[in-house]
């Protein structure tokens, strides 16, 4: 498998071609998350305004997070027109190690979901946007009077997570 595909050398000034279908998948645990419905409505409206064909599933269990993503992949695969952009929003409570908690309280790792879609051949070379609205641990952010030591950081890793750096 050639992971990058035979495409022209990308240039930072060149834009992604978004003339094909845009698809969005919104997965949101609403139960036990007061106000979450506001996010679903706002994001759904935005996706439609930006011409994304949007699929919404509320209160997915941990397993349903994976199943819905697999189904999303199948839909994209079966789509006759080329897909040019995918957006996935995962909204749920978060566990102490960055896990997402499904409506059943079970855990699913967001990295696994991101990786599953990233490896999808039909989306190779297409921009894939992931929005994660969830806690990533139990620590409070910095106090307002303290230093903003989490801001203004551009992190550049020499390799993707889990991969060796050459």
């Amino acid at each position: 498998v050639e992971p990058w595909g035979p495409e022209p050398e990308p240039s930072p000034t060149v834009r992604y071609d978004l003339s094909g279908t845009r698809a969005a998948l919104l997965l949101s645990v609403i139960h036990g998350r007061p106000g979450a419905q506001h996010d679903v409505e706002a994001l759904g409206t935005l996706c439609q305004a930006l011409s994304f064909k949007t699929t919404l599933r509320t209160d997915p269990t941990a397993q349903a997070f994976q199943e819905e993503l697999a189904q999303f992949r199948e839909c994209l695969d079966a789509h006759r027109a080329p897909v040019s952009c995918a957006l996935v929003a995962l909204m749920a409570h978060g566990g102490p190690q960055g896990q997402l908690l499904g409506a059943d309280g079970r855990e699913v790792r967001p990295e696994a979901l991101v990786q599953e879609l990233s490896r999808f051949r039909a989306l190779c070379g297409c921009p894939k946007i992931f929005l994660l609205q969830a806690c990533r641990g139990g620590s409070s952010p910095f106090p307002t009077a303290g230093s903003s030591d989490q801001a203004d950081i551009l992190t550049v890793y020499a390799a993707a997570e889990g991969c060796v750096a050459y």
Partner: protein
Amino acid sequence: RDETGSDFIQTLVEVFRADPGREVLELLTEVNRRVCQLEVLGPDCPERRKACLEIRSSLRRRLCLQ
């Protein structure tokens, strides 16, 4: 979040709707700037706190959604 939705999603929608033709990374930077300005009360902390997004990108081209 209880009354109006989460800071992140609501700010993102507000910023993207205002200028949908701008590059996505620029828009996300603006979202982060606004979220960092907000002061919130944590669930178990009486002191006001500020949150911050983490944006990771491996895009190889400019991404504009409109």
